[in-house]
C-alpha cells in the first residue's frame, strides 16, 4: 500500500506499536519487540511532520520522508518538527533520551533487558499518543 497522508502514517505507527507490544507480551522476544517498536515512533513523528506540512508541499515532503536512511533518525525528524514550531515537552524529551533505537538493531542477536524493553514501548506509546493528540 502506498502511504499518502498523515493519518496513514499514524495508522502504521499504531499497527507497529500493537505488534511490538504483542511480541513482548506473548512471545517475550524483547529484542524483536524493540526493533519493531522503533519503527512505530518513526512513523508517529513522520505523521506529525506531514500533518503540519502545507498541502501544496505534501507530495515533495512525503517523497523525502520515505527516502534516505537519515529519515530513520528520531533526531532528524524532531528537527523537521522544530521547523514547524513543534517541540517535545520536557517529559517526552526525558523519555527520548532512553530511546536508543536505531535500524542497527537488526545486526544484534540475543535478548535485551525486559525492563528496558517495557520502557522503550512506553516511550513509543507516549509519542504515538502525543502525535495523535496534536492531530485531532
Amino acid at each position, binding site marked *: 500500500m502506498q502511504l499518502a497522508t498523515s493519518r496513514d502514517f499514524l495508522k502504521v505507527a499504531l499497527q507497529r506499536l500493537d505488534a511490538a507490544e504483542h511480541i513482548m507480551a506473548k512471545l517475550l522476544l524483547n529484542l524483536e519487540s524493540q526493533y519493531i517498536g522503533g519503527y512505530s515512533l518513526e512513523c508517529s513523528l513522520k505523521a506529525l511532520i506531514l500533518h503540519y506540512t502545507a498541502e501544496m508541499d505534501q507530495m515533495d515532503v512525503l517523497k523525502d520522508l520515505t527516502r534516505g536512511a537519515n529519515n530513520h*533518525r528520531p533526531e532528524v525528524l524532531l528537527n523537521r*518538527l522544530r521547523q514547524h514550531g513543534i517541540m*517535545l515537552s520536557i517529559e517526552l524529551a*526525558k523519555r527520548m*533520551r532512553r530511546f*536508543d533505537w*536505531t535500524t542497527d538493531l537488526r*545486526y544484534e542477536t540475543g535478548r535485551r*533487558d525486559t525492563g528496558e524493553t517495557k520502557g522503550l514501548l512506553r516511550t513509543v506509546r507516549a509519542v504515538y499518543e502525543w502525535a495523535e493528540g496534536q492531530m485531532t
Partner: protein
Amino acid sequence: MTTATPLWEAKRTPETKMVETHLRSFFEDAAAYRYNPASIRVRIIDSRFENLSREKRDEMVECHLDQLPEETQRDIVTLFTFAPSELQQTPRTLREFLLNSEFEDPDRPML
C-alpha cells in the same frame, strides 16, 4: 604527529560546554555537542555504570540533567552512558560499539 580532532568536537557550543562542565562535577567524563537545532547529544563515561542496566544509569544521570535550564533539558534527546570497559579497543558488545560510533561520528550514514 598530530591527532585528528573528532568530528563531533566541531559541534560543541557554549551551551553544550556548559552541560559538560555541569556533568563533569558528578561523573568521570562527560561530552556533549549540538547535533542539530532540536537535539543535543550527551555521552557520559563512568566506572560506576559497570554492570548496571540502562535504566539504573539513566536514574543516576537524570537528577543532574534536571538542574540545567529548561530549554537545554528539552533539547537533550540523546543520552549515551558507558562504563569505561565498554569502550575498550575491542568492544565487548556490538551494541556499545554502534552507540559510541553514533556519538563519535554525527555524520555517520545509517544503512
